[in-house]
């Protein structure tokens, strides 16, 4: 189903439909996350992917129009790049430990510590929160900063009306400095 949504995204040229589909795609993936025990992630993906980003896309579309032109050039090169990248990834997964195998190295080492020690060291049952806010709290601070940076970026770009262009103001203001 995800695949179908993805392919539909590729084909459809009405951007409203695309955005809606992308939202659905996010919701579906959120479902998948829940299946894979990542409830926090699912929650967030639903809120962000299906919620916020859809709203943002719609707002942007309202400002920027919603029809996509037919792709002009032959998409051969992108296809090649994608096939190579995908093939490389598949090749890489060959030696990856099987899906869901509890003996994978990924589940040990650091992860063991989180699951076994966090009740004593931090004392909250949601290990994800414990890792998020404490063990890797610094990453989360970075994440907060990223969000903040995005806000600064959007403010820089969209705050105020259309900027005055050219250098009319500068020559006039030149007398003051130097």
């Amino acid at each position, binding site marked *: 189903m995800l695949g179908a949504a*993805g392919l539909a995204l590729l084909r459809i040229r009405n951007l409203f439909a695309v955005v809606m589909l992308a939202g659905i795609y996010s919701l579906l993936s959120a479902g998948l996350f829940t299946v894979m025990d990542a409830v926090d992630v699912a929650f967030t993906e639903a809120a962000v*992917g299906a919620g916020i980003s859809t709203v943002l896309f719609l707002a942007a579309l309202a400002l*920027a129009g919603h029809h996509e032109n037919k792709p002009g050039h032959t998409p051969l090169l992108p296809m090649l790049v994608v096939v190579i990248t995908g093939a490389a990834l598949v090749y890489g997964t060959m030696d990856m430990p099987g899906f869901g195998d509890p003996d994978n190295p*990924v589940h040990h080492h650091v992860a063991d510590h989180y*699951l076994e020690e966090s009740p004593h060291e931090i004392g909250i049952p949601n290990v994800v929160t414990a890792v998020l806010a404490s063990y890797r709290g610094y990453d989360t601070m970075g994440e907060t900063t990223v969000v903040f940076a995005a806000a600064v970026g959007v403010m820089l770009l969209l705050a105020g009306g259309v900027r005055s262009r050219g250098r009319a103001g500068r020559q006039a203001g030149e007398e003051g400095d130097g």
Partner: protein
Amino acid sequence: MSVDLFVSHYNYWVVIFLMMVGFYILISRGNLIKKIVGLNVFQTSVFMLYISMGKITGGTPPILLDDPHGEGEAVGHVLYSNPLPHVLILTAIVVGIATTSVGLALAVRIKEAYGTLEEDEINRVEAQTEAAE
């Protein structure tokens, strides 16, 4: 290719397929908004890859069932999925939406400046400006 390998890895491969669909949209489409959609799909699929890594068959979400102040003996008996990929992906999702919002803001500004969101048309306008200089 053994059946075993297929069974244990098909999940990854599906994810990779989705990833590549997103990547393809991103690099082949000329519409700037669609590019951003592609980027979103691409990233969401990468998240799935991560979450797949963290999944343990038969495991439960990493929310400890016992009283945290108890002995914690039960931890050994209940199989929890790996929490670390979840944390990483939480961060990544946030980063993704941040990128999306900046990208959309740029797209809006480009639309205002050029009157179009199609890469070809923008390139044409730019070529004209350059020739005029």
